[in-house]
């Protein structure tokens, strides 16, 4: 095979300068020619290690082979045998730490760009009309899915394919969860997400939006009165954490959830055509260095901030964001104020943010996470001149569903306790995704949704 003849095809992207002023997708996707070149690099291993790196066990060599045979629709169909949201995963999965990290080619050169090929095949399918998916005969069983994010959508699709009647209960006015409210348009176009959701509807999945479980109904009511035989809770990590420092209620301080929800879900970047406003200052500080922080800092630039600064108390090596996101942010002009942590947000006479009192840090001994722990340098206090602050230090579990569901065991942080099969302490109730693990990735939530679907199917057979 052509091991060293063809090099890994780079992802074509919009020019950083121009893209930092628009919300159109940054990565424009492989051309057919590039896809064929990249697909030719796959060794078609007999025992493909890449699959072991995938939480939903996508048939990776098989779909890549179909691409190299120019059967793109076949490749999309092959992807969908295991992955219900391939156009999403091809864009937002951290492939470098999953499938691609196991690729044999990666030992001596660069691994096959599995994610980019996944996106190519899925986009082809979206552009050319979706392939029909097979569905088992109706079983007469009803399953309620609480939360229409990646975990819930995946679980719903798998259960629908198995012939169960599935209803998704979504609190917001559209399904998709973090794919809609959290991840920006320039990284994951909402039209792509909506297409995947429409595909689920064609599988027979019912989506009830504007339904807040824990308020308008409850898990017990769904199962006892409305005849659902099982329930899956995938309500994600929707509760924003704040720093708990003085000044956090000043005008100009947003949680990342609020900032991104205004921009993504409510399309405030199209204000005033879309009526939800968002206010952006000249100098924006984003606290935190995960993917959410990168999304917020890049969004700030696009909304017109002159400077967008990531403020993080550790160093570059410890940043939890994907390398690609970090790189994109940097190319677009996001600045990094590292080894720095705010201790107070300062306001003007009208209560509007005018600065942030910070301490400088240095790295000490490794902590429980294995990362070198940041230690404040005494007397290093300084004022960072900013007028907007976005807090992106993480999210916890939203208690609306869990508190209204008696008999559901929770851990100390309020996450649902579920075993490896996503079974909870409450009979007939399964859970997965961020509500179980705490804030993680889209693909891990999808993996959990998939596992839960298997467990729910097995449970329904015993009933």
């Amino acid at each position, binding site marked *: 095979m052509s091991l060293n003849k063809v090099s890994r095809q780079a992802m074509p992207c919009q020019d950083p300068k121009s893209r930092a002023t628009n919300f159109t997708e940054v990565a424009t996707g492989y051309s057919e020619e590039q896809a064929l070149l990249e697909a030719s690099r796959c060794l078609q291993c007999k025992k493909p290690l890449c699959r072991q790196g995938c939480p939903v066990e996508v048939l990776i060599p098989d779909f890549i082979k179909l691409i190299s045979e120019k059967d793109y629709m076949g490749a999309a169909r092959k992807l969908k045998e295991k992955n219900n949201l391939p156009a999403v995963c091809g864009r937002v999965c951290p492939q470098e730490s999953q499938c691609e990290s196991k690729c044999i080619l990666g030992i001596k050169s660069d691994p096959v760009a599995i994610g980019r090929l996944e996106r190519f095949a899925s986009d082809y399918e979206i552009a050319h009309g979706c392939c029909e998916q097979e569905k088992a005969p109706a079983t007469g069983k009803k399953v309620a899915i609480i939360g229409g994010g990646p975990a819930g959508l995946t679980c719903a699709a798998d259960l629908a394919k198995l012939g169960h009647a599935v209803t998704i209960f979504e609190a917001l006015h559209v399904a998709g969860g973090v794919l809609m409210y959290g991840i920006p348009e320039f990284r994951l176009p909402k039209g792509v997400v909506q297409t995947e959701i429409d595909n689920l509807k064609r599988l027979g999945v019912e989506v009830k939006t*504007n339904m807040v479980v824990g308020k308008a109904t409850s898990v017990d009511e769904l199962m006892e009165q409305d005849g659902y035989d099982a329930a899956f809770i995938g309500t994600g990590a929707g509760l924003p954490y704040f720093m708990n420092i003085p000044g956090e209620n000043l005008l100009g301080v947003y949680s990342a959830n609020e900032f991104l*929800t205004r921009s993504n879900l409510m399309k405030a970047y199209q*204000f005033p055509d879309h009526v939800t406003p968002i206010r952006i200052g000249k100098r924006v500080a984003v606290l935190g260095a995960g993917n959410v922080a990168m999304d917020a800092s890049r969004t700030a630039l696009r909304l017109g901030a002159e400077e967008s600064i990531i403020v993080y108390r550790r160093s570059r090596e410890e940043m939890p964001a994907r390398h690609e996101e970090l790189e994109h942010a940097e190319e677009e002009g996001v600045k990094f104020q590292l080894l720095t942590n705010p201790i107070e947000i300062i306001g003007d006479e009208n209560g509007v943010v005018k600065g942030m009192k910070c301490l400088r840090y240095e790295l000490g001994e490794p902590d429980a996470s294995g990362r070198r722990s940041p230690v404040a340098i005494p007397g290093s206090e300084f004022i960072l001149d900013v007028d907007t602050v976005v807090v992106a230090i993480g999210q916890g579990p939203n208690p609306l569903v869990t508190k209204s569901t008696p008999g559901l065991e929770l851990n100390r942080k309020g996450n649902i306790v579920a075993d490896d099969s996503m079974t909870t302490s409450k009979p007939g109730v399964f859970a997965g995704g961020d509500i179980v693990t705490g804030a993680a990735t889209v693909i891990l939530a999808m993996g959990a949704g998939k596992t839960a679907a298997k467990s729910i199917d097995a449970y329904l057979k015993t009933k």
Partner: protein
Amino acid sequence: MYPIVKRRDLTSGIVLLEVQAPEVAAKAQPGQFVIVRSDDKGERIPLTIADFNRETGTITIVIQDVGYSSKMINTLGEGDAFLDFVGPLGLATDIEKYGRVVCVAGGVGAAPIYPIARALQQAGNEVITIIGSRCKDLLILDEEMAEVCDQVVIATNDGSVGVKGFVTDALDGIIKQYDGKIDHIWAIGPMIMMKAVVEFTRPLGIKTVVSLNPIMVDGTGMCGACRVSVGGETKFACVDGPEFDGHLVDFDLAMRRLTYFKDEEKRASARDNCGGGCGCH
């Protein structure tokens, strides 16, 4: 879609809408709110529930045209529909038998206080309600309120009806009339009015609950836009409220936070200063 089955113009700029939303109506309690969106480009607007009917599956809301989106909503009529209508959100009013209670409503606050007053009366309380407005013409729901309260006192700034002055003047009269023997007070209305009521009752030590209506987006505890400071602690009004012990609320902060998008509000309104809905732009 959530059809509007009834529209009633209560007074200039204040409209009552009855909306078909059976799932919300089945669970709504006094004190809770809904979030509505009129169209695909609209904001999510929180509105406290003014009434609910479990039989007809309807929710009543009352909207004053104070901003761009509320002006748009107030152009809707019977036959129109909301695109989104979610609820019931927030915690319900703590209804129990307190004894003699006073409900103080300022302006459009009469709407959310109506189901609270009714529930308090049904729970066996002696309910006195004060409704305040700038003048007689702007007074709303006084007749409805009279049906569910033991006593209704009107206060108008210009004295065109009832007591001349603010709701606090009327409250002062009631407290004196009953020799200070008031067991519980609810105050709902503009922030400045609720602040005045809690400052008035603070030295008297009468428990006073207020209902806050800060800026919100999702209304389910996800965004934190609605954070308020209560007793020195940050709370999310959407899930921890909207009702709080008024003596613990930092009203100055709450009022400031309401102003954050004022400029954007003007920009949205300026975009179609024809009032919107005419299709000229």
